[in-house]
């Protein structure tokens, strides 16, 4: 398998973490891709120019990250990252969707801050930061139910909180979300997470 890879993308990180958790990491060749660079975007198999994108051994190109995660889960025999059925399945997938939302909104803020100050919308930044704050509130409300499971819900929530810390070091969410903070500080020491810390994103090219 070949993975279009960027060391700055949290969605790529999710796929790499998923591969490590299922023992598939050694079967995936990484192809460095910078989605901020036009040349890499135009050459990408994903017409949207996004990473991650995974080419399977059958030569099929799959994306975006939830589809890739499901594929890796399938290759690993199933029921590893995504519980096969019932409440556990919906919890894992819902948490992934919520955490993906945090990531998307954080990226929207990041992209907005790259604009020239006079073209920047402070309202848009504030709107997205409010969405992120509400999502973290929702995670705190269910944090007592988070444990040690290595399903895609837990893993993506940890990746999202790391990304928030990286991009908004001023946002002291831990003080107001103590249960989530305790869970996160323990969970983020997992090998797959500790081994995949992100590099800062580059400016667009």
């Amino acid at each position, binding site marked *: 398998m070949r993975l279009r890879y960027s060391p700055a993308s949290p969605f790529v990180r999710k796929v790499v973490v998923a591969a490590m958790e299922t023992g598939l990491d050694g079967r995936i060749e990484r192809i460095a891709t910078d989605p901020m660079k036009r040349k890499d975007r135009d050459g990408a198999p994903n017409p949207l120019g996004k990473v991650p994108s995974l080419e399977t051994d059958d030569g099929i190109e799959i*994306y975006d990250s939830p589809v890739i995660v499901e594929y890796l889960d399938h290759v690993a025999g199933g029921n590893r990252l995504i519980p096969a059925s019932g409440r556990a399945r919906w919890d894992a997938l819902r948490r992934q969707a919520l955490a993906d939302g945090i990531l998307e909104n954080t990226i929207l803020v990041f992209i907005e801050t790259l604009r020239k100050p*006079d073209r920047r*919308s402070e309202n848009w930044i504030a709107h997205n930061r409010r*969405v992120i704050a*509400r*999502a973290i509130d929702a995670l705190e409300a269910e944090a007592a139910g988070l444990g040690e499971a290595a399903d895609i819900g837990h893993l993506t929530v940890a990746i999202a909180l790391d990304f928030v810390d990286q991009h908004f070091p001023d946002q002291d969410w831990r003080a107001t979300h103590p249960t989530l903070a305790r869970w996160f500080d323990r969970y983020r020491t997992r090998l797959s997470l500790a081994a995949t810390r992100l590099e800062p994103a580059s400016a667009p090219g």
Partner: protein
Amino acid sequence: MKLWYSPRSPYARKCRIVAIERGVADRLELVTADLADPKSAQAIPNPLGKVPALLLDDGTLIIDSPLIAEHLDQMPGLPNLVPMEGPARRHATQLEAIADGICDAVVLANLERNRRDGERSETVKTQQLAKVERGLDLLERDAARLDGPVTIGHIALGCMLGYHEFRFGRDWRRTRPRLAAWYDAFARRPSMQETMPPEMKSA
């Protein structure tokens, strides 16, 4: 079971179509959300403030649209639209992901166009629309793969094309005859007609 939607949201439309196609629409209580009204937006149970959001009778929240579609598909009803296994699933979910991804770019391009003077960037709008063009080109090239039973992928595609045409007009059809022919046939489905916002009909 309650489904929060806004009439123009292509992602919510996808879920409403699944419910109609499977004959379970009468079990859904539809709640209209006005995303431009902060009060109405805050009442959506999705912490991300987005539609669609599905709240089950036992209080379980389901987000986002691919998961809601899958949930509605698992209710007893007419033939399924979300294959759960094998190549059929990968084909359907991949098509859904491409259609939704293009739709995301259409939404961002439209938001950019609607920014106030000074904060608007032609470059950003152009970049997003370039993604849309590349995505539509890929779909045109692979249009033969749209044959076969209707899945969630087709529904996502139909909703995306309808929304894109509503926002950016009919130009996309000129270089994509096969995709346009597919869309025109698909858009005649009663579920597509029933979920089409009135302003989209006159567009």
